């Protein structure tokens, strides 16, 4: 009995104090004006939509806030692009490992996949920067072979950003795909092949429909992580690129406007969830299947 009480207490502590209440507090905070601590709870402290309004209309000038809305849109679209890119990169290898590889080979490949990911996000971004910087190895090669005379600004034109995000979340796409395809009975593929289906039809009609929940969960994870990522845009984005989480970051650490930061964070979270739900509905996958 005591053990049961301890278990319930642990889970209650987690779900309440580490998950539910903090979220709730963040939402509550976002409906408050930005006040110094002394005036909090005073007459100026009231429920307001100011912070949300500021996302659409710049507070002081009263003009439409294209900067922030644009950053939001860019973050979402770039994340979708990265998700699609990662799916394209990972699908063939996931299929190969799940259906064609021998167990021994698969184990080696798995280890090779995991080992680079013990190196943290920042250092991985750093390594890409060494490659992509104007003095970096790739520009050295391009200029050395005479393909270009002036270095290409990979970081400025956001190539670095896309590569960095894709690189950061390859595994997150790979494992759900692998798990989903792995449980597909090989005979189904053989049967389709016997019936004379060309290879692309086998994938379109047999493998992908079967692996749909896995594809959905991989895509959801990559999308959510990209949209919420901080390191890759900070270190690989161009100087003019504004990533939405960077704005949130600045509200906390540069402007010390927590309520507005909280509001923006909430906008990001809701925006992402709505998009994911819409996509899941579009492709007819239930949420339950996805998070299995």
């Amino acid at each position, binding site marked *: 009995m005591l053990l049961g009480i301890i278990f319930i207490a642990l889970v209650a502590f987690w779900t309440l104090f*580490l998950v539910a209440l*903090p*979220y709730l507090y963040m939402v509550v905070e976002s409906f408050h004006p930005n006040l110094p601590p002394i005036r909090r709870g005073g007459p100026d402290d009231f429920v307001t939509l100011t912070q949300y309004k500021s996302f659409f209309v710049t507070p002081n000038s009263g003009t439409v806030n294209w900067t922030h809305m644009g950053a939001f849109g860019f973050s979402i679209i770039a994340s979708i692009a990265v998700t699609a890119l990662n799916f394209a990169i990972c699908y063939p290898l996931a299929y190969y490992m799940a259906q064609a590889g021998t167990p021994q080979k698969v184990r080696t490949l798995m280890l090779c996949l995991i*080992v680079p990911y013990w190196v*943290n996000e920042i250092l991985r971004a750093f*390594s890409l*920067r060494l490659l992509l910087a104007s003095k970096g190895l790739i520009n050295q090669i391009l200029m050395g072979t005479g393909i270009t005379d002036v270095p290409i600004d990979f970081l400025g034109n956001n190539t670095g950003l896309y590569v960095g995000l894709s690189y950061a979340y390859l595994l997150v796409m790979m494992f759900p795909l692998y798990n989903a395809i792995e449980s597909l009975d090989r005979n189904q593929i053989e049967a389709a092949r016997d019936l004379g289906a060309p290879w692309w039809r086998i994938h379109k009609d047999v493998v992908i429909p079967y692996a749909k929940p896995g594809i959905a969960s991989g895509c959801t994870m990559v999308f959510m992580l990209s949209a919420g990522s901080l*390191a890759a845009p900070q270190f690989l984005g161009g100087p003019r690129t504004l990533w939405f989480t960077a704005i949130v970051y600045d509200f906390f650490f540069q402007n010390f406007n927590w309520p507005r930061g909280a509001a923006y964070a909430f906008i990001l979270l809701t925006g992402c969830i709505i998009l994911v739900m819409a996509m899941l509905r579009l492709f007819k996958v239930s949420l339950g299947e996805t998070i299995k």
Partner: protein
Amino acid sequence: MTSKLIMKGMVGFYIFLFFFYLFGPLLVMGITAFNTPNYPQAYPFEAFTLDWFVKLWNHRAMMEGLRNSVIIGLGVVAISVPVGLAASIIMNQIYHRARGLYYLVTISPLLTPGVIIGISTVIFWKDVMSITDVTKGLFYKGIILTILGQASFVSAYCLLIFMARLTRFDRAQEEAALDLGASYPQVFWHILLPYLKPAVVSAVVIGFLSSFENYNTTTFAILADKTLVTVLAGEVRQGTTPALSALAVIIIGFSLLGAICYEVAKRREQIRADRAQRQAQIAERNEVEAIA
């Protein structure tokens, strides 16, 4: 036949490209760690040096960050592993209908962008800890907030790890122990926990590592303290030094070591299992002969 060969070649080439993408940047970064120029460069390789490792060792902030990262990692593991374990056991007891909701709540930290977890943790716990000045002085610290914030999603990882193993657990073993007179706590300590031991080890390792390399949540929750990753981020933002490459080399070295140990342990276990199976086969044969 030739088309099959071409296909095979293409698959091989694709796998090569994939792992080139995965390892290439790390390899280049590794080379820069041993090259003398101040700007991390792989080519031309001017002279071999270990100076950057010495510089790294003397980097005060980084060493302090490392110490904090270890403390945080241990703290997160101390919270998340028991919580994840308790949550997985409760998952098994819960009624079918409530299970979906429970699952969604417990897994939601994995789908929430890390920045949002960081922000909400700080906002909520600041208020909780500010109840008295004493508690604020004692607990409102970056290290503690980071442990709480990271524990929120690391617990969800642990839950998934435990659940994966629990689904293969034969419930009849629990009943057998009960039937032999064990109390419920005895069933947990004697039967369930030993069965879950490999999962506990995985949860500890994965929990510690994901805490160690976390950036998004940490950067908000750490306040004025620092971890290895936030120090790194600061360094990368300010510029580039081969000392960072040296750090990456050390981390890769450790993870390779870990991977090798894991592989050796796996092989040993396999050998033991094979031996047991051979013995069982011999026993089986003897038995058949004894009856005949």
